[in-house]
């Protein structure tokens, strides 16, 4: 397996405050990787640094290409879809317009139309509401819309920032099931940041644990899930 994403000595700053202290990790093509950690550990910052939305140093390579000098929109155009914290829904636009926006960098009209249909197959609730203003959807529906919007890019890699946030446990289960399905069927590599460690480890095949801006643990998701010490000291369940 080749590394799709390679992060070396990543340091990120908010003004004078350093949020990441030299992160090293990599992500294999086709994998579903989770980045775990408590509040303020630097999970969101890591995702934002990948998309160049926060000042950072170090080297990030996607398919061997350095990302440092690229703007956010140019990184997205390489095939990295980022579902931000809070979902980033265009609330004053319709569900369908949100999906079209996901594909805004693509020119292949016909397959955009068929991709929208495919998203409706994954998330039937979106089809039922396609003319509705996205802001009127429930939290869970908006999260599904955010994932569908990201997939409309036909990404190689999808970054998800706390998809479970604020959602009822049952809905989170559904959502994670679909994420697993997308990872297998669409061959999209996924990097998911989560506080809900238990669920994320069930889903993922690879895991990193991050604490105050440093990677403190890495390995196969199953191993980390079964390691009593890791669970107690870092994951808190």
């Amino acid at each position, binding site marked *: 397996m080749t590394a799709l994403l390679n992060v070396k000595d990543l340091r990120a700053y908010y003004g004078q405050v350093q949020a990441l202290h030299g992160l090293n990790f990599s992500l294999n093509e086709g994998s579903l990787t989770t980045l775990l950690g408590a509040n303020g550990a630097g999970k969101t910052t890591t995702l934002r640094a990948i998309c160049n939305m926060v000042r950072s140093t170090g080297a990030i390579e996607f398919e061997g290409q350095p990302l440092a000098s690229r703007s956010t929109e140019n990184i997205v155009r390489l095939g990295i879809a980022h579902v*931000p914290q809070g979902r980033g829904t265009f*609330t004053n636009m319709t569900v369908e317009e949100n999906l079209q926006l996901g594909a*805004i960098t693509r020119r292949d009209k016909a397959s955009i139309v068929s991709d929208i249909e495919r998203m409706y197959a994954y998330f039937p609730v979106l089809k039922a509401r396609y003319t509705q203003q996205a*802001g009127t959807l429930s*939290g869970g529906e908006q999260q599904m819309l955010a994932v569908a919007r990201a997939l409309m890019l036909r990404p190689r890699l999808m970054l998800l920032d706390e998809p479970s946030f604020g959602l009822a446990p049952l809905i989170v289960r559904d959502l994670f099931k679909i994420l697993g399905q997308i990872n297998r069927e669409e061959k999209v590599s996924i990097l998911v940041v989560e506080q809900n460690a238990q669920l994320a480890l069930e889903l993922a095949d690879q895991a990193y644990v991050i604490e105050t801006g440093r990677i403190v643990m890495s390995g196969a998701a199953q191993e980390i899930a079964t390691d009593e010490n890791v669970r107690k000291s870092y994951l808190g369940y």
Partner: protein
Amino acid sequence: MELFLNQILAGISTGAIYACMALAVVMIYQAIDHLNFAQGEMAMFSTFISWQLMQWGVPYWAAFVITIAFSFVAGIAIERVMFRPLAKAPILTQVAGFIALYSIINSSAGLIWDFTIKQYPTPFGSAPFLGSQLISTHQAGMIGVTLLMLLGLYFFFQYTRVGLAMRAAASLPESARLVGINTSWMVALGWGMAAAIGAVAGILIAPVVFLEPNMMLGVLIYGFAAAVLGGLTSPLGAVVGGFLVGIFENLAGTYIPGIGNELKLPIALALIISVLVVKPAGLFGRAIVKRV
């Protein structure tokens, strides 16, 4: 009754001026999420350019097209040079920038073309329209052009990729970047389009108010008011707002005793405030529904 109908007609014909300017206001609001106080001056300067071209012997419609193209490019240039560096500055810094731009353009126009009032031609003629003394063929033509621009904008925003991208960039810049939209260029494009629409407005308004560097002062206030009344997010609202302001101003001047020409503007603005108290997003503005 006839007086009433006539006043409505007269209101529609002045309203066309406001509607035209309000469209430019809505356009820039779409792009930068606030108002550009120099909008009227930019329109005035464009109008002078077309006047100058005609002085040099360029035919009306050729001058019209050249001026629109020039304004579009100049709008983009102003954004790139002056406002892009200010993009992350506090809103008041930008307001200071707008005011600076306002006086720079106003004084330059005065310097180049002086402050004497100039006649400006109309391609529609100024005969009574359909036999009515209250509305001229020029004003009818102006209403037609305004409605055409409205239609054009509607199709642009609803049915084109760039239009969709522009709306996205205006409403949520960060999310827009995350779907791959170059938001910075969307803002520049918005400036260009607003400047072009403003140029059309200026060219249509000039035959009515005459050409001089301060011609847009009052018009811009009405244009703002019309846009706010109709809803800053809606081109249709801006146009309807423009006509409503024109009609109301005329009716108030005629029927409310003690209101002459001097008090028309405050009365019109008072009406707008009362409407906004009830409907803060404006008559046609889409109130954003949020569910958490």
